[in-house]
């Protein structure tokens, strides 16, 4: 253990080298957000373009429990399969209304792409069923 601590504490930078980009979580977040929202970056997941829910790398649909954050106008955290995911940031949100004239194919959702536990998740509120779903895990 002692060696481990030693390894972790080792500073590989030479004297005079600039500081790391991410010295703490709260400085890391704006940069990630900036990168995620940058117009010139296209993620592999964006190229999948599933018709129903916007973009998702892996298409998974499962029910989740969401705690709403009124000030942020987005989820504060969500609970999936007994595990708690605090939301670090809402990256973006979008709305989807599809085939409203066809009861079998109809879809009405408000989707949020959130950063949580180091991953990017798409959670959506299904207006028709009145419940929250996880609709995608990105990359």
């Amino acid at each position, binding site marked *: 253990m002692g060696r481990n601590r030693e390894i972790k504490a080792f500073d590989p930078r030479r004297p005079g080298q600039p500081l790391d980009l991410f010295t703490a979580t709260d400085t890391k977040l704006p940069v990630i957000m900036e990168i995620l*929202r*940058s*117009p010139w970056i296209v993620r592999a997941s*964006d190229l999948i373009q599933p018709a129903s829910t*916007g*973009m998702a790398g892996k298409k998974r649909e499962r029910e989740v429990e969401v705690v709403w954050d009124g000030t942020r*106008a987005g989820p504060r955290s969500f609970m999936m399969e007994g595990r708690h995911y605090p939301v670090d940031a809402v990256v*973006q*949100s*979008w*709305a*989807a*209304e*599809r*085939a*409203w*004239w066809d009861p079998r194919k109809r879809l009405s959702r408000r*989707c949020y792409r959130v950063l949580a536990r180091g991953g990017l998740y798409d959670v959506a509120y299904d207006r028709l069923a009145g419940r929250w779903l996880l609709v995608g895990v990105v990359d």
Partner: protein
Amino acid sequence: MHLHAHSHFSFMDGVSSPAALLERAAAYGMPALALTDHQGLYGAIRHYQAARNSGVKPIIGAEIVLEAVGLDDGVTIEGDVPPDNRLPLSPPVGSGRASASGFHLTLLAKDITGYRNLCRLLARTHVRTGDDPSVVALAELEQCSEGLIGLSGCPCGEAGAAVLAGLPMRSERALRRLERVFSPGDFYVELMHLMTPDSPRYIAALVALAQRIGIPVVATNNVHYLKRPDFRLHDVLASAGARTSLPGPYDRPNGELWLKPAGEMRLLFADVPQACDNTLAIAERCNLDLGLGGFHFPEAEVPAGDDAYSVLSKAAWRGLEQRYRPITPEAVRRLQHELSIIERLGFPEYFLVVKDIVDFAKSRGIRYSGRGSAGDSIVAYLLGITDADPIAHDLLFERFLNPARRQMPDIDIDFDSRRRDEVIAYIYDRFGRDHVAMVGTVNTMTARSAVRTAAKALGHVPEDVNSFSRYLPWVSPHRLPEVLDTYPECRDHPLHKPEHKLLVELATELDHTPMHLGTHLGGFIITREPIESWMPLQWAAKGVVVSQYDKDDIEALGLVKMDILGLRMHSAITDTVRLARERVGEENVPEPFELPHDDPRVYEMIAAADTVGVFQLESSGQRNLAQRLRERDFEDIIAAISLFRPGPLEAEMIVPFIRRRHGIEPVTVPHSAMGEVLRSTYGVIVYQEQVLQVAKAVAGFTLAEADSLRRAMTNGRSRGAMERIREHFIERAGGLGVSREVAEEVFRQLEGFAAYGFCKAHAACFAVVTYASAWLRVHYPAEFTVAILNNEPMGFYSPRLVLDDARRHGIGILPPHINASSAEFTVEQDGGAIRVGLGSLLHMTSRLLEKVAVERSVRPFDDLADFLARTRAEEPAARSLIRVGALDGLGVTDAGRPPTRDEMLALLPEIKAVIARRGVAGDDTLLIAPARARGRVDTGHASGWTPAMRLSAELECLGLAICAHPLDLARADLEHRGITWARDLPSCADRTRVRVAGVRERAQTPRTRSGKRTCFLTMEDPTGLIDAVVFEDILNRFGDVIVKHRTYLVEGTLQNNPERGLALIACRIEPYEVRTGGSGDVRCASLGTPSPDQLHSRMVPAMTSIDVASTMGPA
């Protein structure tokens, strides 16, 4: 606040009305709201007015379609660009021909210069040429950009579309080019967060571009509807507009184009707060003042040294000398009074412009008559605009022009409809093409069109769409559920099926949605400045240039709008006079408009309800009224025209009027002065002018004050406001010594009737035309009938009934014949008979009509072969001619008699073939063809056809019954069924139970005061007209029979008394089919649903050309 909002005047793309958007914006506390409809300012004036009233600053703008501007230099056409540089996204912007040919750009008017430039830009773009799509050229935009603020547009704008297509360079070029078009600081990059997964990057890219070029950004939301749930209607409209089914041309991913409150917009643009700030900055810079409330008259012709007033008054005094002999002091006083008010209000030019137009008509002998409240003015009478003497008929100038309210006068003129185009051409020449346009009118959806729109969007096939809209009455879409539930003709309607619930729901929500810009019947705008500086113009489907504003908007702008209407009765009167003069001599037929109104035969005819064809008095309601009123003089005609109107009918004025006239109840009025004023109407307030007179007589109001009182009473004031008006009235009456109780009762009556009275001046102007037409019908019935038939469609009745009516009056009806008929109906036998013309024959062509006339002037036709050889008649036309008997009696067969119609029909193809061969082969084939026709059946008629066959052909090919009335064929059967004929009904006692048979002529279901549906059914049998009243309970049981069939047996109780007139109160209606046996085959002359054994089944369309459903519903 929003700078990019579409109302429902973005036809088939916007959902909410400008008023609704404003109401919501005001509720959100927004300081301003811009209206930016597609390619036009259709809703701009109402937006402007409503915004001013609600304390929100109005911004007027438009979303235009602009040609591509971001291509590489030197390249102007998309197709010339190398494939890699082409925009891969073809933007479906604009509508119709303009689609996919340009990019959106949002324009906002900063001030009046900007507004005028916007009007000019839109007008020039739309009117440039009829065939070009309405895409704005960059050069035009540059010319008209002063005073305009430009926003780069939605994702269908060039910058946005290029970003989405991954072409940032093109986007940058477009932005740089557009920036140069506008004044510095007047161009913004428009950001829209449409809540799609792409939105953040779309915005980031545009912000980055804007920062690089140095253009400010502004946030908008491309509002298309008021609230989120309305997105469905938006999708429906967009799909129907693009003639596709849902999801429509844009395939919108969500419903976020609603009017979002400021907080929500700020949240969406949290990263770009300056975009939201700039909306407020732009709103502060837009300060448009349209200067409403002024008047802008076109230039009247005024000689040097004179002014408009002096020209007008000279003309009026000259008119006084001509119209009044001798000139009375009253007329002089009246003229001086009116002239002084006209001068004070500044309207002399308006009168001179109208005079100019009617003088032209007069000089060309074009018959015309003024109508409406202009009849209240002696000046209009003296200038020859109207024909009813305002002094003789107690007409009050203040009803027309109230000196207390400076409001644009409105003079409507009816011209001979055949020559109306000459008048219109004169107006264009006289005032200049750039100064005249027709008034546009926005056509909104009815239940029927809403159902069709929704059904098409939902992807139903055309047959289903037709079946959904069939039998729906002309009502507003919001009444659709009620109509389906309660109207008997909708009992088995397919929309009742549960799977169409969504369709009905959507159609109902499409209430008040405009569909397209149409043309007002006869409204013209005439301006002093070029009209495009006042309003945008565009081509209407009719091929005329119309304003994008409707008549109310034009009135609000203070521009002159004139109704140049076409009246077919004027054409008919002109024709009657011409025909009569041809027959009896020029000097023996007076000008009908100049006749003294004292011919007793005219009043006898009207009182006998024998008025088919008479202007305004021919409808079933008027005939019923005539039986009760028994007109005796010209005032009675005015009363009749006024009483049978929605207002007086709703206020049930007719009953007390008739009862008092016939002494059944006493004439009682609360005040003697009121009795004096209402003497001619037996104490009933029928005319709006009488409201003024009563207020003057009882409370000492001036006529101007009295007119203001009338308007206040009409416009549904609040209880408090009404109470104040009442107290004022009572106080003024008290000043004249009228007791409070009496004054209260007078006021109560005024209040009750003011809103329902009819303008007497309008009725008096019409009555002049009515008398002229009635006089001509009495003295020249054949000519009058011919003139009516030649000017169809007009009036209340079908041509078939007009002809039947002539036959009942002893006028002979001669069948069409190629050696005797001309294109039109003609008078023969010295006014004793009418010859049916060939013009309206099925399959007849104008070429053939001309050829027949030319060839016949050489010599008459000998037989069918001669006719075909000389006219080269097309086979369908020739068949029609043979079938209606136009070749009967011509030629001789081997049997030594003229050929029958069957023989001629059988020969026709062969003769045509022989004639064709002769031309080609050059040999002179003898025109002898083998007679292979069916053996002749002796029918007692030279044509070889039974009456049923002949009648059937006449109905099919001409829509007329020439040889007999359809029910004549079933006389025996009908008499066996115990029916009573129409001519015998007047002699039946009141409350007799009768059974009648008739062919439906009209079925009307006007709105009644109680809200119940009552159908007024007009039928015809061989002896006359039958009017039946079908009350709601019976209508619910038999309504579908009325709509779906044409001939009925009706049972009911006869109402026959002087108070209520003659009518049948129906209690049972069943369809009836005319069946006659003859020569082994059954000819079924059913006038309703076709039956399988109907040999001449095509007669049905001819007979059902008037769709009853179209005449049902509120008038």
